[in-house]
């Protein structure tokens, strides 16, 4: 997974200004509504071929945590 590229896409999916997310940014998925959640889950599914749940995302505290989790999921396939 190209981490920087994925962070850029995550930023777009969450409708944040370009470049406003870094790996150290808090993910804060508890505050997402259902459209945010489905946007991100759909992006992960299509871009990385990994199916995650909202609960999986809630366990990731930062964007970097999410990337690490997703890399683990990809490696486990």
């Amino acid at each position: 997974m190209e981490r920087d590229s994925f962070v850029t896409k995550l930023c777009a999916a969450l409708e944040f200004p370009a470049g406003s997310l870094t790996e150290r940014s808090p993910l804060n998925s508890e505050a997402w509504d259902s459209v945010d959640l489905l946007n991100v889950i759909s992006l992960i599914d299509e871009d990385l071929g990994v199916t995650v749940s909202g609960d999986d995302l809630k366990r990731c505290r930062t964007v970097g945590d999410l990337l690490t989790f997703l890399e683990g999921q990809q490696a486990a396939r």
Partner: protein
Amino acid sequence: MRRWILTSWKLPELRDPPDAPAPGAGVTGLGIDLEYVARFAGCARVPSTAFARQVFSARERSAWNGPAAAALAFTVKEAVAKALGTGLCLRRGPGVPCRDIEALVDLATRTIAVVLRGAAAARAARLGAEGGSAWCWCDATVACTIAALFGGSGDPAALDAGLARVLRGLQSDRRIYETGLGFVSGMVPPTSPIRTRASEACGISAYFWRTSA
């Protein structure tokens, strides 16, 4: 697999469909959702977003003529999922998969059809729901749906109180919209006052019922 087909009536008709349950059947669930249309602009673009491709079926996407239809289709899914008491998921996790609630929205003809299948149909059957209604409203800015599932019998007061909360939310606070009612387990005859009051609050635009099993 039991299949639910909720067919539409052209706007703004508000009459009981021919196969509506007899008075005395209860309400098994009530849900509401509101979304800003602008958030669905990507759904109407070509190529569409991953969200559009994953959350909506090709049949749903082919019916759209702009982001308002996409937003309204999403509110139907979410409101029905709340009426089912589950919420939505993509494929895995709590909730019914988005594609198990298919909302075919055509704003050009002002018609909407809803099909429940898979986990959504199974959940409706477990609740004893025999059919459902969805009241939809949208403009260029906002889309909103209130959905109700009918069947069973029970306490009229619970639904009445729940609906009152929903309608207050519609008028005052978007957060209440989004939170919605979730699931109201009270049951009440699906009498016209419910529909009349919802109409007054948000402008009813469509009305659905199961037409085959």
